[in-house]
C-alpha cells in the first residue's frame, strides 16, 4: 500500500461521512474538513454544493458573514464541521477556555450545531486533555432537552486516532474504527469519557489508490488556493 499522510487519511474519513448531504459549509481554518469535502465531491456523481466561508476567490457568499448563519437557519446547510478545545462524552464542545488557557471563542457553534442538518466534530489531538468527562465551558451543547427546537446535532467525532459515531438516543459515542497504528486499548486510555465499542475494534480503511490520486491532484489544487500553508505542508 502506498504511504500516505495522516491528513490524507483523515480527509478520507470525512469524505466517507458525507453521505447524501447536498450542501456542506466549512467555517474558519478547517483545511482537513475542506480536503475531505472536496475529495467527496470529486468521488461522487452528484455534485455537492460546497460553501467555503473564507474562500479567497469566487467566494459563494454575497450577503457578508451573516449569510452562512441565515442559510443554516433556513435549513439549507446539510452538514457542518466543528472542533473543540475540549469535547466531552455528551458531545458538548468547548471553544472558550480550558485548564486556565484561553481559546479563540465559540464562533458560530452555539447556533450552527443546532441549525445545520448534522455536524461532524473534528479534532486531531486525541488525548484526555481534549476528550474530557465534562467540558469546562459549553460553547454548544451536544443535545437538547425535548421542547427545544433543534434541527441537527452531532453525526460523528473524528480524531487523529479514531472515528466515533454519535448515538442520538443513547446520547453517547460509539467507537466506529481505530486508525491504523492505534489499538482499542490506546483509544480507551487516551479518551477521557466513556464510549460504546465492540469487543474488537475495526481498523479505519486506509486511503485507496484512487483517493490518493485525487487528493494529490484535483483536491490539492482547490485546497492550496485557500489554505496555502496547509497545502504546502501536506503536498509539497
Amino acid at each position, binding site marked *: 500500500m502506498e504511504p500516505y499522510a495522516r491528513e490524507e487519511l483523515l480527509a478520507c474519513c470525512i469524505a466517507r461521512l458525507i453521505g447524501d448531504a447536498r450542501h456542506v459549509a466549512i467555517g474558519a481554518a478547517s483545511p482537513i474538513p475542506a480536503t475531505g469535502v472536496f475529495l467527496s465531491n470529486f468521488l461522487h456523481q452528484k455534485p455537492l454544493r460546497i460553501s467555503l466561508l473564507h474562500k479567497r476567490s469566487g467566494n459563494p457568499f454575497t450577503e*457578508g458573514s451573516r449569510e452562512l448563519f441565515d442559510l443554516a437557519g433556513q435549513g439549507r446547510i446539510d452538514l457542518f464541521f466543528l472542533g473543540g478545545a475540549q469535547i466531552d462524552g455528551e458531545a458538548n464542545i468547548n471553544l472558550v477556555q480550558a485548564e486556565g488557557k484561553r481559546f*479563540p471563542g465559540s464562533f458560530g*457553534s452555539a447556533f450552527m450545531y443546532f441549525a445545520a442538518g448534522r455536524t461532524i466534530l473534528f479534532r486531531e489531538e486525541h488525548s484526555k486533555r481534549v476528550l474530557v468527562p465534562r467540558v469546562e465551558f459549553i460553547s454548544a*451543547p451536544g443535545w437538547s432537552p425535548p421542547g427545544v427546537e433543534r434541527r441537527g446535532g452531532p453525526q460523528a467525532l473524528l480524531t487523529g486516532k479514531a472515528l466515533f459515531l454519535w448515538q442520538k438516543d443513547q446520547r453517547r459515542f460509539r467507537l466506529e474504527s481505530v486508525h491504523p497504528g492505534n489499538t482499542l486499548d490506546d483509544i480507551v486510555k487516551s479518551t477521557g469519557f466513556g464510549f460504546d465499542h465492540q469487543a474488537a475494534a475495526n481498523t479505519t480503511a486506509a486511503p485507496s489508490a484512487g483517493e490518493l490520486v485525487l487528493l494529490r491532484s484535483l483536491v490539492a489544487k482547490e485546497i492550496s488556493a485557500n489554505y496555502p500553508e496547509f497545502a504546502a505542508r501536506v503536498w509539497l
Partner: protein
Amino acid sequence: MSGLPSNEVVFFKNSEAIAAEIPDGAFLGLPPDYSMPAMAVVHALIRRDAKHLKLLGVPVLGLSADLLIGAGCVAEVESSAVSLGEAGLAPRFTEAVEKNLLKIKDATCPAIHSGLQATEKGVPFMPLRGVLGSDLLKFRNEWRVIDNPLRRNDPILIVAAIQPDVALFHARWADEAGNVWIGRRKELATIAHAARRCFVTCEEIRPGDMLEDELLAPGVLSSVYVSGVAQARRGAWPLSVAGVYGIDDAHLTLYAKAAKTGEGFRRYLEEYVWNRTPEKNSSPAASRA
C-alpha cells in the same frame, strides 16, 4: 437612536485624522480580518495611544484586535472569537485574557449579527434559534430566554440590540459624494447602519457618485451612513482587499511568531507601527490579489 450626528460626510486628510475622531472609551465595531479592517487607522490609534476602547467583533476579530490589545488600547472585547486564522491563536488577546487584563464578553456569530440588525431596524431585540444550553448565556445578562409568543412551550433566545459608537473599516473605493463601495462585505453595511458614526478608509476616492452606476450601486454603502472618509492606500495591509491585493500570509506568520512574547510584540510595534507613517507602512507588502 439619539444623537446621530449630521449626515454630511467629512473628508479627512489621512488615517491619523480619523484616529483622532475616535475617542478613548469608544465602543468600536470592527470587521474580521477577511473583511477589510482599517489597519492604517488601527496603527494610528496605537500611535495616538488610544485608551479604554471597547471592541465589537462583527462577528469575530483578528489582527486588528490583537494589535490594539497588545498596545494597551483596549478595556473590553465583545466577540464570537479572536484568532489569527490559519496563523493560529491571537497571542496578545490570549495572554491578556489569561492574565485577567481584559474584560471579554463571549458571543456567538449570529447573536452579534442579530443584535446589530435589531439596531438597524430600530427594535430593542431579535430572537435567535439555538444557543439554549450554551454557557454563553450564563454571562449575558442582556439576553433572555422567553417562550415564543406565537407558539407556547417553545423557549427561544432574545438578544439585545447592539449599537456601536463607531463603525470603522477599510474599503476599495469611496466617491466624492461620500458613498463607499464595500462590495460583497455586507457586514460592513450592517455595522455602519447600526453605529452612531462610521469612519472609512479607502484605497481610492473616485470622482462622481457611485449610486448613479447600476453596476456599482449594489455594493455601495450610501453616504447617509458615513461620517468621515480618508484615503489610505493599501490601508488593509497586511490583510486583503478582494480584487486589489491579497492577504500577506508571510507577514501574518511573522506577526504571530513575534507577538508570542511581550518583548517580541514591542519590537514588532517599533518596526511596523511606531516608526512608520501609514503610507510607508503599507509599502513593504507584496501584492497577491
